[in-house]
């Protein structure tokens, strides 16, 4: 789960990390009030879960409260990469001496949280990594022991020479580690970590991603999810415990398992079609999930055909068949459905579908080709 910048800032603040003043606003009036309180020139920044906000006009400089209100009214309600902006962050446009990058990431290779710091901050860290990897210092933390004092110091020494800066940054490393661990993050990033002309070290911008698997046991984190900034069909899917990503094609896909779902999309493309979505109904599916999946897919007007590709393991194919039958009883599906089912309880599944006059297939390539052909016919 991606947190908004203002939410990430709040978690950093709770951990004691020094930050510029500032707050989040939902209306131009609120933005104006924050700008007045903060004083001086401020930056008004769109809070949406996409990159490239600046280029899209979602980040603006305002020299006074009136301008802040003006900027906010321009940004609030605008659409960036398909997402509507509902909140803006208003922070001082700071005088900055240096900019560094500090990130903490759950790393697959070392199987540990790994710090990455660079004194080339403020820019896109992916670019630094690609062009000048020697400017990035990496350090894996053993979570059994936690971040050691000498490790935090080593990271701080990679960024600063001045001992006051080093001391401040050392403390921030410990605090960021605490934020990461105590919130079940998979990423916690300060970019940039800045020094000011008067010698302070402050976090200017923050990004935190929470491991979705933590949310069940961490209701305090789950409530941070801001669904207003997301694609509504994806929100609807998540609420139904489905993993759904909307795409631009016309073949709606309902698949169990992320790998098979991706392979299904690949095969749709292979046979000349375009997938309308990624949709994984997951394991242990029950009929209800299938009904919800069909509701979400049929709501997309681009969809010309619906392709089920279910290989039963922990998922029972009879559950899926029952779901398809239940859905078609609840609402009329206007587009053709191509069903491929095989695996656990497959015989029962075929019987269930046959009993309502629906046909099912056994072969993935045949089903995908047929779905692509039907989509082309309908186009």
């Amino acid at each position, binding site marked *: 789960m991606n947190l908004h910048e203002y939410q990430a800032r709040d978690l950093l603040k709770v951990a004691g990390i020094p930050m510029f003043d500032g707050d989040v606003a939902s209306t131009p009036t609120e933005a104006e009030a924050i700008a007045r309180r903060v004083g001086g020139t401020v930056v008004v920044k769109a809070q949406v879960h996409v990159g490239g906000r600046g280029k899209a006009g979602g980040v603006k400089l305002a020299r006074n409260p009136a301008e802040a209100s003006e900027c906010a009214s321009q940004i609030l309600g605008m659409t960036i990469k398909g997402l509507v902006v509902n909140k803006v962050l208003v922070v001082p446009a700071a005088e900055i001496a240096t900019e560094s990058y500090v990130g903490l990431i759950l790393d697959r290779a070392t199987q540990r949280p790994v710090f990455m710091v660079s004194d080339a901050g403020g820019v896109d860290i992916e670019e630094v990594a690609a062009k000048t990897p020697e400017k990035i210092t990496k350090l894996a933390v053993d*979570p059994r022991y936690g971040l050691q004092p000498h490790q935090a110091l080593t990271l701080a020494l990679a960024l600063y020479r001045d001992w006051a800066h080093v001391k401040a940054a050392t403390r921030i490393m410990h605090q960021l580690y605490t934020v990461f661990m105590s919130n079940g993050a998979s990423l916690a990033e300060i970019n940039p970590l800045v020094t000011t002309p008067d010698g302070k070290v402050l976090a200017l911008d923050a990004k935190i991603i929470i*491991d979705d698997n933590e949310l*069940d046991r961490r209701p305090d984190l789950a409530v941070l999810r801001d669904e207003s900034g997301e694609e509504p069909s994806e929100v609807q899917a998540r609420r139904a415990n489905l993993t759904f990503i909307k795409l631009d094609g016309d073949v709606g896909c309902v698949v169990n398992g992320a*790998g098979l779902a*991706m*392979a299904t999309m*690949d095969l749709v493309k292979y046979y000349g079609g375009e997938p309308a979505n990624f949709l994984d109904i997951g394991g242990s599916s029950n009929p209800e999930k299938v009904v919800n999946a069909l509701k979400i897919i049929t709501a997309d007007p681009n969809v010309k055909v619906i392709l089920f590709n279910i290989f039963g393991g922990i998922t029972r194919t009879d559950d899926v068949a029952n779901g398809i039958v239940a859905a078609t009883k609840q609402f009329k599906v206007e587009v053709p459905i191509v069903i491929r089912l095989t695996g656990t309880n497959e015989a029962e599944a075929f019987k269930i579908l046959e009993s309502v006059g629906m046909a099912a297939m056994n072969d993935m390539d045949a089903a995908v080709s047929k779905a692509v052909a039907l989509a082309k016919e309908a186009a």
Partner: protein
Amino acid sequence: MSIWIGKDTRLVVQGLTGREGSFHARQMIEYGTNIVAGVTPGKGGQQFDNTVPVFHTVADAVAQAGANCSVIYVPPAMAAGAIQEAADAGIPLVICITEGVPVLDMTVVMPYLQERGVRLIGPNCPGAITPGEAKVGIIPGSICAPGPVGLVSRSGTLTYEVVNHLTRAGLGQSTCVGIGGDPIVGTNFIDVLAAFNDDPKTEAIVMIGEIGGTAEQEAAEFIKANVKKPVVGFVAGQTAPKGRRMGHAGAIISGSSGTAEEKFAAFEAAGMGIMRRPIDVIELLKAKLK
């Protein structure tokens, strides 16, 4: 046995009396797997289906029923504890089916297991099957057949898809291992590839990867350097939109973007057969197996 599981496997099912545990335990028993015990705290002393003794702890299952392998079906928040319990009880091979285990839990589980020399497969994996001998997990036994092909995969259902093609084409399997697609898994491609390479019953290997991370590239390098048997590979996610499934962070650390094309290129560099579709496995393997 071919690799890791087989006729000598004496399985304990952690979470036996739960919905998933009991359903799949019955499927495993039906397949012929020797389930010697179940563990559900609070149900020690009961019998499952009048045949399998249930214990409060894995230690009891080891001491009283001689379990030497564990499969885990407990809820995600309890999975780390269940894995560590099995390790403490002296179980050398633990297979965790549970999906949704918090990744930070796994950062602690892994050194716990390494200190005890315990192999974990998973979490969030379909398990493993040595056709005709034993299945541990949820891979449908009906789609498998004994034979010379070793299969290793990060996916669940995609594994079934490929195994299904193999069996229909008369290409049986030595062992199929689903290692799981979570960021941190106990057993990686290289572990399984090394075992297949050393297994006299395995003559060719199928590797099923996904986008994200660099496990496939590392596996390809291992194959190039060490594996003497033919290997064919697939990567799911060739058409996945960029930046939606992979955080950019892992990519920075590894210096890789983790795309399917990058992985296929690594496969080619390692001299592997390239599967553009799951079904391609048949022709590729038939050509390699004389």
